[in-house]
């Protein structure tokens, strides 16, 4: 029973991490209609940035604060230079453009930081653990991650549902021309959304870095699973991404424990089942 409870905790915890990565993706995905394959590469860049900056300033939190503006700028520049030219085109071209971005960002990572494996130490204030059973303890830092994820979820909800920016963004995702004809420069908002998405991905990489490790190719692994989360939840729905992340957290954790031979397939089978039942995802617009 205790083990079941702990596995449930593991599921939720993993779900939170997935949500953090997927939230930026669903934002860009849903609001701008852009399939951003480079999301995983942004995640990786975040992890490397915080590794590098933490080394420079010797403080993890300052490292995050310094790293986020870099990612915002990077996202903004990429949107203006490349993505902005593709809004009128088929999804296909976005898939390919961002595929090209992955190649470039992976190579840049190699040039900037080399091919060694790194890690970021857990900040001292959060370095502790709570005993769950006589053998297993729960790291405080993982609880911290969960809290941060909840804050991000709440923050996104407030911005999108309650602010003027959110209103414009929502309107723009439904009818771009209409919003533009109202005299609002939707293009600039799209640039903001894209750079926010990039920063969110990087933020997830930064927050995850102390419990993970920082290594080349780490973005590729997280990318596909984030897409699964977003699609299950319904594209563009932050609430959906949250529920989707929890479902995948459960499927992955219990898949590993109950059907270890098919653990990886469990996640994708779950996705296929949900899409058969609701082709537009749990909270997606038809």
């Amino acid at each position: 029973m205790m083990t079941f409870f702990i596995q449930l905790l593991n599921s939720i915890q993993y779900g939170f991490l997935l949500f953090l990565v997927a939230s930026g993706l669903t934002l860009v995905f849903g609001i701008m209609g852009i399939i951003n394959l480079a999301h995983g590469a942004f995640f990786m860049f975040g992890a490397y940035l915080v590794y590098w900056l933490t080394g420079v300033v010797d403080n993890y939190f300052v490292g995050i604060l310094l790293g986020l503006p870099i990612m915002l700028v990077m996202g903004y520049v990429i949107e203006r230079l490349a993505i902005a030219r593709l809004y009128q085109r088929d999804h296909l071209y976005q898939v390919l453009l961002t595929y090209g971005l992955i190649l470039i960002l992976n190579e840049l990572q190699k040039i900037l930081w080399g091919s060694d494996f790194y890690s970021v130490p857990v900040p001292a204030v959060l370095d502790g653990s709570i005993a769950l059973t006589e053998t297993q303890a729960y790291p405080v830092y993982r609880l911290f991650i969960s809290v941060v994820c909840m804050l991000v979820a709440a923050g996104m909800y407030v911005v999108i549902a309650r602010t003027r920016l959110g209103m414009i963004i929502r309107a723009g995702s439904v009818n771009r021309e209409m919003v533009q004809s109202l005299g609002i420069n939707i293009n600039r908002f799209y640039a903001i959304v894209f750079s926010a998405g990039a920063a969110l991905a990087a933020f997830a990489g930064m927050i995850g870095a102390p419990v993970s490790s920082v290594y080349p190719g780490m973005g590729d692994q997280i990318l596909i699973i984030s897409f699964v989360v977003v699609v299950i939840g319904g594209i563009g729905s932050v609430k959906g991404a949250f529920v989707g992340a929890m479902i995948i957290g459960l499927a992955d954790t219990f898949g590993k424990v109950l059907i270890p031979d098919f653990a990886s397939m469990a996640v994708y089978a779950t996705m296929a089942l949900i899409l058969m039942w609701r082709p537009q995802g749990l909270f997606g617009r038809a």
Partner: protein
Amino acid sequence: MNTRASRLIRYFLISNLLLLVAFPWVGEHFYVGLVMNMMIFGILAMSLDLLIGYTGLVSLGHAAYYGLAGYLLAIISPESEAVSIWLALPFCILGTALAALIIGWFSVRTSGIYFIMITLAFAQMLFYYFNENTDLGGSDGIFIFFKPSVTLGSITLLDLDNHIVFYYFILVCMLLVYFLLRMLLASPFGQVIQGIRANENRTRALGYPTFYYKLVSFVIAGSIGGLAGFLEGMHGGIVSPGHLGWHESGLILMIVILGGMGTLYGPIMGAFAMIFLQDWFQEITVHWMLLMGVFVIAVVLFLPRGIAGLIEDLAAKLDKSVTDSNRPATQKNGESGDG
């Protein structure tokens, strides 16, 4: 496009074909092998073009059929002798067709981004199935030790172990697929699926059960992808989960766009260009991925209609300046290599 311009394109394609026919006699051994790879990818890209360029379904899981056929060939091939092609080929093609039927049954109900994602999900499921199935070699993959034999009774019709025979075998397969798809697209069925791409609701309103048309198109594309996988299994002699991974699916998608979707011959050229560039970039720098990334982005931004678009524009321009129309055509010839 008028008939004159399309005739120019036809001449261009025929001259390329002649180059391909002649290549094994003049090319280095390694490059003959590389061209075989290119032709196999050409077949694969044409099959995806049927989905993307003609039916309007963007699949990011097309490598699934390519890899699956390879696994089916490995399964049916005994370790110590060659399997008969009369058994292996139908087994692999029908097997992939069945997989495409099942996956398509669930997938073609969705569209747009959801279709992209659900095809990806099914391909990933297959990827992990093979990745974790240790009986089939797990992540290392599994060998196909002998190429299937082509015999009639006790007479060997084709010796596929012969480099040059195998080259022409692949070339003939590629041409067959090309003309088969051309016929299909000219048929009433082809007209309907192109109608679906243009406007699905209208096609449905005209009384066509679009779901079944899309499904059939999906199954045909999957089967041809299976043929490509069958050939690659023979050529490379190994099939691994990497063959069905999303990187491979992304590569095929890139090839179709680079070549020019909705043209059939374009994706073949895309395959030639892409595989050549991969090979070449690797030789000029260790940071070849950077070059490839920049190249991919440049194609997306500046060459949305791909190589075929370029050729069509060129042909149209040539057509206008009626005089001296042969020279620039041969120039273009050299540029796309032996494509």
